């Protein structure tokens, strides 16, 4: 593997890791507040469709992004209503959201565009174009760092930079602000938060809504930046890989970034090489595809440290009566 190939694989890693990272951070907010969310997949899918649909109709990708976020927020509100207000089972609500999104997107797409459950291909301002960072072309010829800057760091869409900026922002919000402290507390011991006079329900809704916004961006990135339109089921399990990454990262923001980058890297390698020969042993591509899940199981089984979820996760909060 020469230097140039490595750069290309890392470039592909960043593109593949971005939707995972956004979804993973989305899950982080929700689960840190004590609301398990396996509906990340469904929210991303709904956002992917509505962002592509609006971008196709108006020709403006920013309106598309807003529509995607709105769609994801609506599903988040539904999840919040079911699991916070009505204290339903959070896992079941999440599964319902996945099915709802899978069916609804195709149905609405067929009704609006008559193209068999997809949106028309986007072009021009209907897509997020790659951004060239300043000096990318001048620095390209500098040996070593030049290609890294020009190929790897520059030339992604604005949502990629937003996703990576969201990591320090999340860290700061969770660990350095009052809101973050309360958010983490509400996932560990909601009764204590309630005693302090802070609304558990309000905080949990806040977390679920932040989750909705991030999932919306992730979906819009898939449909309007990576692709030029929506195709049914286009999230293809990325919401679940993001959940795996969240467990792998033990519910922490920086680790979430490294986990999603690792999973993205595994995918990128699997896409580049069908079979990998290491010291005479051929590793089939299926192993690479399954590796994120295998790693998660290993972590969950406690072989590499222990993954302890937020203590109040999955349990609806009931005030003592």
């Amino acid at each position: 593997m020469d230097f140039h190939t490595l750069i290309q694989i890392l470039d592909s890693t960043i593109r593949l890791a971005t939707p995972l990272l956004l979804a993973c951070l989305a899950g982080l907010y929700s689960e840190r507040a004590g609301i398990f969310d396996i509906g990340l997949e469904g929210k991303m899918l709904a956002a992917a469709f509505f962002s592509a649909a609006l971008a196709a109709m108006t020709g403006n990708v920013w309106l598309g992004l807003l529509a995607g976020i709105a769609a994801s927020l609506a599903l988040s509100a539904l999840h919040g209503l079911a699991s916070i207000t009505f204290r339903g089972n959070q896992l079941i609500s999440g599964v319902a959201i996945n099915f709802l999104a899978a069916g609804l997107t195709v149905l609405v797409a067929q009704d609006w565009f008559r193209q068999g459950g997809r949106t028309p291909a986007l072009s021009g301002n209907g897509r997020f174009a790659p951004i060239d960072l300043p000096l990318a072309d001048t620095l390209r010829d500098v040996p070593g760092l030049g290609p890294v800057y020009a190929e790897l760091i520059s030339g992604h869409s604005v949502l990629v930079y937003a996703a990576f900026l969201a990591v320090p922002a999340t860290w700061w919000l969770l660990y350095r602000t009052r809101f973050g402290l309360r958010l983490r507390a509400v996932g560990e011991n909601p009764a204590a938060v309630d005693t302090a006079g802070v609304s558990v329900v309000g905080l949990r809704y806040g977390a679920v809504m932040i989750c909705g916004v991030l999932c919306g961006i992730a979906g819009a990135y898939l449909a309007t930046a990576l692709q030029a339109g929506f195709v049914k089921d286009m999230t293809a399990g990325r919401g679940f890989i993001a959940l795996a990454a969240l467990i792998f990262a033990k519910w922490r923001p920086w680790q979430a970034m490294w986990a999603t980058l690792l999973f993205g890297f595994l995918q990128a390698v699997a896409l580049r090489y069908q079979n990998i020969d290491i010291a005479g042993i051929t590793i089939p591509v299926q192993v690479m595809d399954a590796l994120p899940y295998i790693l998660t199981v290993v972590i969950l089984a406690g072989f590499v440290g222990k993954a302890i979820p937020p203590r109040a996760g999955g349990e609806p909060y009931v005030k003592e009566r």
Partner: protein
Amino acid sequence: MTFMKSLMGAAASLALSAGLAVAEPAIIFDLGGKFDKSFNEAAFKGAQRWAEETGGKFRDIELQSEAQREQALRRFAENGANPVVMVGFAFADALSQVADDYPDTKFVIIDMVVDKPNVRSVVFNEHEGSYLVGMLAAMASKTGKVGFIGGMDIPLIRKFACGYAQGVKAVKPEAEIISNMTGTTPAAWNDPVKGSELAKAQIAQGADVIYAAAGGTGVGVLQTAADEGILSIGVDSNQNYMHPGKVLTSMMKRVDNAVYQALKDGPDMETGFSVMGLANGGVDYALDEYNAPLISAEMKARVDEAKAAIAGGEIKVHDYMSDDSCPALSF
């Protein structure tokens, strides 16, 4: 009382005869969905053509999960639909269990062979059509490297890849073929993002023509190829229009003709084994106003020559599924 009885008897016999007279044909689409711009959609178009020409009606269902296969088959057979057409190899197991229970119903399965007296099995010589587009790819390529992106890794898709590789090598024996499969689960048919990344990886390795045999995943391949300024090749339906001037050609599998023929033959059809190849118009390469500037007269002449030779039997294209191996490509 007697009047009531005879009235009810008449009503019952009327209902019965109505049930018998219906015998509408039925189509079951596979998981890709009726409007996949490709395989299933071609089948739908064939059925529509039949409906428009004859004024007949057909019933159809889109499957949502694997578990529905047998259920859908039995439902249509019980309700008197005849013939029942199944679009896709994955129906083979369900059909071989169901076919014996409904000896008077004719079943048509596409892309697979089920050996029952009331089943017509339609298979296509995809390797022959892929051979032709492989020749075109080799002639259009400037780098001498061409790509193939398959959907789910199954023998049928390897058959596409193998025919394509043979066509490429027939024109440029030294050409390199970069082949990737999207995945090993049905999700591989609907993952355009992965299709895009695969296309980018192949472009980075020097490929400048990429053949996508991957259902919905192919949409991402064609899009990326158009974005990056290289050529792509569509599959099953004519996909040239999707990116005019950027899609070199499409390997057309005339599923529409097969379905049309099945519906036209109706309940009295001949069952057995039916092979659709280059010779009887079952497969072909697409040439229309969208890709005409890309195909020079010389290219066309050479491909048409090969087409005639394959149809006439002078060129034998190796079928991957006959012995699970490919002389021109290793997987």
